[in-house]
């Protein structure tokens, strides 16, 4: 596992009006490593990843990608760096098939403005097989007919198709059953095995302890703890989530 972080945030903050959503957060993630981001509701997890994905620019602090200082102004720039985010609602178009969804916005075109369907279908099959996604019988079926786990798998495959270096997953197993959760967690491990840096937000500590290498805990906008999964316990993490020591108490 490489030790130089692919993404490093130093002292970032974000304020929305009177609310300090993030303050002085240090965060680093490395290729091949699964970093879990945990915290109660309102802790700032969504704000942090939206800042990384370029949806809200951070107010303060510095962002480093591959060791270089960067300022990410929008989702396009984040995508160009190789940062991909899979939202909780998956952002899939139910009426389109798997291939169309995976290439949405980035279709390949032949002469005379024609979509290069066969080449896209092939790439789609290759990506799914490289992630060992075996449960999808045909990539030409509508996404609406797939199960929650399959849809999640497609959303993740869509994110990693584009030479991404860092993939952020927002609550990937929240709405899934046992077998489907298994599929998604295996997928997460495979992503890391393929050399990507993975950040996963989850409320499910059991899932986290299964896939994560490191666990960062946010509380009230501050990072109160960071653990190596192998050397901590669920109890310790829960304690940090609910009562981790804050540097500054909000409102004072």
């Amino acid at each position, binding site marked *: 596992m490489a030790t130089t972080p692919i993404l490093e945030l130093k002292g970032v903050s974000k304020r929305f009006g009177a609310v300090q959503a993030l303050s002085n957060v240090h965060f680093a993630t490395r290729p091949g490593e699964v970093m879990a981001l945990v915290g109660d509701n309102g802790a700032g997890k969504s704000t942090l990843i939206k800042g990384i994905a370029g949806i809200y620019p951070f107010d303060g602090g510095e962002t480093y990608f591959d060791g270089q200082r960067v300022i990410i102004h929008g989702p396009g720039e984040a995508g160009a760096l190789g940062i991909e985010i899979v*939202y909780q609602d998956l*952002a*899939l178009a139910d009426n389109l098939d798997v291939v169309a969804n995976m290439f949405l916005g980035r279709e390949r075109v032949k002469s005379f403005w024609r979509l290069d369907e066969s080449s896209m279908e092939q790439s789609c099959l290759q990506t799914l097989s490289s992630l060992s996604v075996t449960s999808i019988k045909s990539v030409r079926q509508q996404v609406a007919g797939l199960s929650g786990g399959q849809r999640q798998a497609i959303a993740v495959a869509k994110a990693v198709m584009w030479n991404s270096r860092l993939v952020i997953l927002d609550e990937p197993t929240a709405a899934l059953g046992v077998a489907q959760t298994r599929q998604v967690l295996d997928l997460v491990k495979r992503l890391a095995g393929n050399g990507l840096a993975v950040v996963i937000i989850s409320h499910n500590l059991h899932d986290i302890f299964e896939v994560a290498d490191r666990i960062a805990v946010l509380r009230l906008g501050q990072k109160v703890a960071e653990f190596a999964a192998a050397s901590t316990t669920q109890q310790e993490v829960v304690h940090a989530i609910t009562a981790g020591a804050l540097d500054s108490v909000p409102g004072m």
Partner: protein
Amino acid sequence: MASQITAETSPVEPVQETLGEYFNNWFKRVRGGDLGSLPIIVGVILIALIFGMLEPLFFSARNFVNLLLQMAGITTIAIGVVFVLLIAEIDLSVGFVSGVGGVVMTLLLRESATDWHWYTAIGAGLLTTAVIGLIHGIIITKAGVPSFVVTLAGLLAWSGVVLILTTVLSTAGTITIQDTTVLGIANAYLPEVWGWLLFVVVIGGVIVSQVVRQQTLRRQGLAVKPVSVLALQSVALALVTGGTVWYANTDRGVPVVAVIVLILLAFWSFVAFRTRFGRYVYAVGGNPEAARRAGINVDRIRIQVFMISSFMAGVGGVILASRLRSVDTNTGGGNLLLNAIAAAVIGGTSLFGGSGSVMSAFLGALIIASVENGMGLLGLPSGVKFVVNGLVLLVAVLIDAFSRRSRESSGLR
């Protein structure tokens, strides 16, 4: 990122169906509620049988050609309506916008005034309607006003414009068209040989494109349709097209307007299914938020769709003006709007967006025009005609609703 994967290790294998399996899968889908075009085909057969029994003239070659002529205007406008329905919007102005297109062209053709050539007059009419669509689209996207309201305002405003333009010359309001080319659009017929040439071009084009497509898929190791299925579909298409040409030739011949509409259907089907723009239209209709996050300019797509709707309404207006050989104060009014929308919906395009095809405009127009035609032959009073039209639309929507529900419960949705 992705390691070297060869076809042999791919766990997602393309499914190779035999003819028997293909029909089995098709039958299973129908049982599960995915009816496709089946209701339309059954409907057309039923309509033909019912009206044919009540009035044998329905089956005459003369009536058949009449039917082709009667379908042309509605089909054309319905193509534009399909695009609007695909993005889950509505355009209530298509009737009178088609009127504006026809009226502008007619005014510019008149010898006593501007005396333009047919191509500049038609061009000006279509440009006007395209700009109307642009205006609708900009108001809807930038002001955030629902398309229902904006196009309803359009319906009223453009009906007024038609009234103003047609009474500019005389209070009677009827302006006739003298230009032979424009009149030929909806009143001329292909000579017999040209009709068969058309048949060859259509069948040849379809077969060649299918063969090329299957070759490409096969070469890349992807799933192909069984050859026997393709052969059957080609034979069916040849029979239908050939039968149409032969039967029309026993009367006045294949109408020129049928060729025009065929070209429009083919072109817009291509746009909808094979271009990036078409893909984005379906995406915006299916999940606008997903489209936005994928980097698609949703507002731009919506504006372009409303422009298509008004432009095709304009084309329909040119065709209808040519057919009636004139325009008057009520051009674009009457049942035109409802027929165009009903055609798109009956043909299979969903009112809720994301689902449908350009061909549905043709299929729905076929149903509406044949019902109207049949009722006309039977001499039924207008009131009865309206009731029947309403029932046909209701039945079509109910079939769609039932099939959607059974699709959901059988997991195909």
